[in-house]
């Protein structure tokens, strides 16, 4: 059994690796691993703008998608980010040019189809708008901007250009999340009336990011691109005016799911937080935040709590949707995806029969540790139903595939500009609420452009 499991795992890995190797022109013809040959017309020429950690993650996923050809890499950190990614792409036989200045890249590269924007948040608006105006489709990392004004301009530019813009909320393309929304919430309404949402992303305390000293960027160049120092360049997420802090970096992914699964935007938010652990000079955004949203859905009021702390990783990250008939606990990490039935809910056998859920594993009767037969002080833990969807790919791969398929006219974007904008409005308001120290309302028109 174990050998079979290992073999299956290896086969899947082999397939992904073969795809990457094929892209690199390193091995095998496509038919040798059971995939039909794709015509050259399906090739999509891509540039990467921003070759930092997130850019690398996206490129790694792209390398596992057939017919994606990188033609250019742009990053101001020539001696590290740009060099690393360029050499990595060369190892996969992606012939490309490198740039420091994105304007030069857009002027020189004549056969691009799309640009992946993975620069710091405060650059997203300028970069994305310029690429759209250059007639290119854009995959822009979330948050689509560090300001509402920037996000609004992006949406307008996307509309005016007629080009596709996918915002990088990758859970929107995750087959496990799609199953939960389409099958469990929309079709089966398995949770009944959702009343409460709870989510978190907790991380251990971390040191600030350093850099190889011999690869330090010249101060004039840093200043030109909006950074005061190398330290700030490396840790831009913590700085006001550059990033949005943990609520944006971490929370945005999950609060986006709140809006999606509740099929609504919030009415108000109240939040508390602060920089209580790190140096306030270098961690201008809050290192911990607890926020409560209020949603008015078609079924009624929903209160949604979200917490992110950066000093303790307890319980990691997840989202929990609680209704009067059940609870869905889901996380991007596949190790956490359970559905629990409330004792008063109708039987879920029919959902099991049609493949919406996998019934709880039957456990052998365990011997009680004490003489007590039943502890009546708390409700018995309900059995956990499982999701029938397996997803072992890199997390960002399906979202990128959705983007490329949309370019080919074979799919609809899962997170177009307007959706990304609604999430940006929802999330950026949390920082405002902390600063205001009071409940802030969302006006419906705030979500519209």
């Amino acid at each position, binding site marked *: 059994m*174990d050998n079979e*499991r*290992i*073999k*299956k*795992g*290896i086969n899947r*890995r*082999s397939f992904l*690796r073969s795809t*990457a*190797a094929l892209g*690199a022109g*390193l091995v095998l013809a496509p038919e040798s691993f059971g995939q039909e040959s794709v015509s050259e017309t399906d090739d999509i020429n891509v540039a990467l703008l921003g070759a930092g*950690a*997130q850019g690398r*993650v996206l490129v*790694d996923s792209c*390398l596992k998608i057939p017919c994606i050809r990188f033609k250019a890499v742009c990053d101001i950190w020539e001696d*590290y980010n740009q*060099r*690393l990614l360029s*050499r*990595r792409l060369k*190892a*996969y036989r992606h012939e490309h040019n490198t740039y420091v200045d994105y304007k030069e890249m857009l002027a020189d590269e004549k056969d691009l189809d799309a640009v992946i924007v993975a620069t710091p948040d405060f650059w997203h608006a300028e970069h994305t708008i310029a690429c759209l105006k250059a007639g290119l489709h854009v995959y822009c990392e979330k948050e689509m901007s560090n300001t509402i004004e920037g996000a609004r301009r992006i949406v307008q530019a996307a509309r005016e250009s007629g080009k596709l813009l996918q915002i990088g909320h990758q859970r929107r393309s995750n087959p496990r999340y799609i199953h939960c929304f389409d099958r469990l919430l929309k079709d089966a309404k398995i949770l009944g009336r959702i009343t409460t949402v709870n989510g978190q992303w907790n*991380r*251990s305390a*971390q*040191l600030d*990011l*350093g*850099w*190889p*000293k011999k*690869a330090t960027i010249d101060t004039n160049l840093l200043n030109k691109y909006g950074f005061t120092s190398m330290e700030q360049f490396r840790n831009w997420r913590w700085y006001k005016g550059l990033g949005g802090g943990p609520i944006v970096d971490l929370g945005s992914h999950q609060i986006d799911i709140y809006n999606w699964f509740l099929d609504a935007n919030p009415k108000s938010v109240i939040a508390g937080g602060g920089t209580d652990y790190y140096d306030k000079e270098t961690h201008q955004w809050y290192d911990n935040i607890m926020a409560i949203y209020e949603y008015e859905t078609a079924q009624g009021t929903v209160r949604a709590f979200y917490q992110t702390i950066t000093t303790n990783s307890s319980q990691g*990250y997840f989202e929990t949707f609680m209704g009067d008939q059940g609870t869905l606990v889901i996380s*991007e*990490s*596949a190790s956490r995806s359970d559905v629990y039935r409330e004792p008063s809910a109708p039987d879920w056998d029919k959902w099991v029969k049609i493949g919406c859920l996998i019934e709880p594993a039957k456990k052998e009767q365990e011997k009680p540790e004490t003489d007590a037969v039943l502890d009546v002080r708390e409700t018995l833990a309900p059995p956990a139903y499982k999701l029938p969807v397996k*997803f*072992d*790919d*890199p*997390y*960002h791969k399906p979202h990128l595939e959705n983007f490329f398929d949309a370019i080919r006219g074979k799919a609809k974007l899962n997170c177009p500009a307007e959706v990304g904008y609604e999430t940006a409005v929802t999330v950026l308001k949390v920082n405002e609420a902390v600063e205001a120290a009071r409940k802030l309302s969302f006006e419906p028109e705030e979500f519209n452009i």
Partner: protein
Amino acid sequence: MLKNVFRSMFHVSIFVLLVFVLLLTPSCKKSTGESSSEQTKQQSSNNTRKEAEQTNEASVQLIPLDIKLPKPMFVGTPQNIRVPNLEKPLGRPRPPFLAPVGTENVALGKRVTGSDEEPIIGEIEMITDGDKEGADGSYVELGPFLQHVTIDLEAKYDIYAIVLWHFHKQARVYFDVVIQVADDPDFVTNVRTLFNNDHDNSSGLGIGSDMHYVETAEGKLIDAKGVRARYVRLCSNGNSSNDLNHYIEVGVFGKPAK
């Protein structure tokens, strides 16, 4: 008559015995003196043996290996790491590893060669430079798919443990990790495999039964059981995040072979 004869013989015997005893007394002293000297020698010899034994005992006396660990560092979006045959994390610090007194990292500063002569980032010397931190600038990235590095210890050593850090900025699993030692740099002579988690022989070095493991700041410790060798080779074949191969540091803990 007979009784008298016996009595005379008895008296003579006593006399002879007394004379003999008197004559032997100085000799006995000498002998005693000689015996004392020999005892001293014997004592000395015993002491030497004891010291030797103690030395031998010291050479096999086991103490916890002193492994300086880097700061833990997990950043960025977590990656999907559903990997078969994955070792369950201990959930607590690794127990002390006992090695003979005097065991130290004999790979520190030693020459490293590899299958990728032009690493994507970093230099191959970083593998033995003593820097175990997970940050950018502390690791070397080798090209995609199967790659190997070889450390020349410059002499034969009795190797008790190998501790390696591929990459601990992010939770990852490296595939087809095979660690071998040999007497020659080409790995032809006296090749011994210390660790192998290549379950399908994709590395061509044989099927291994060791488990996959998640990279952490603790590094992976391989019990080398005192194997004697000069060359250490480490292979890998990409990881759960990408096809690339990374090394932050490899420590080879041993003592000079005698």
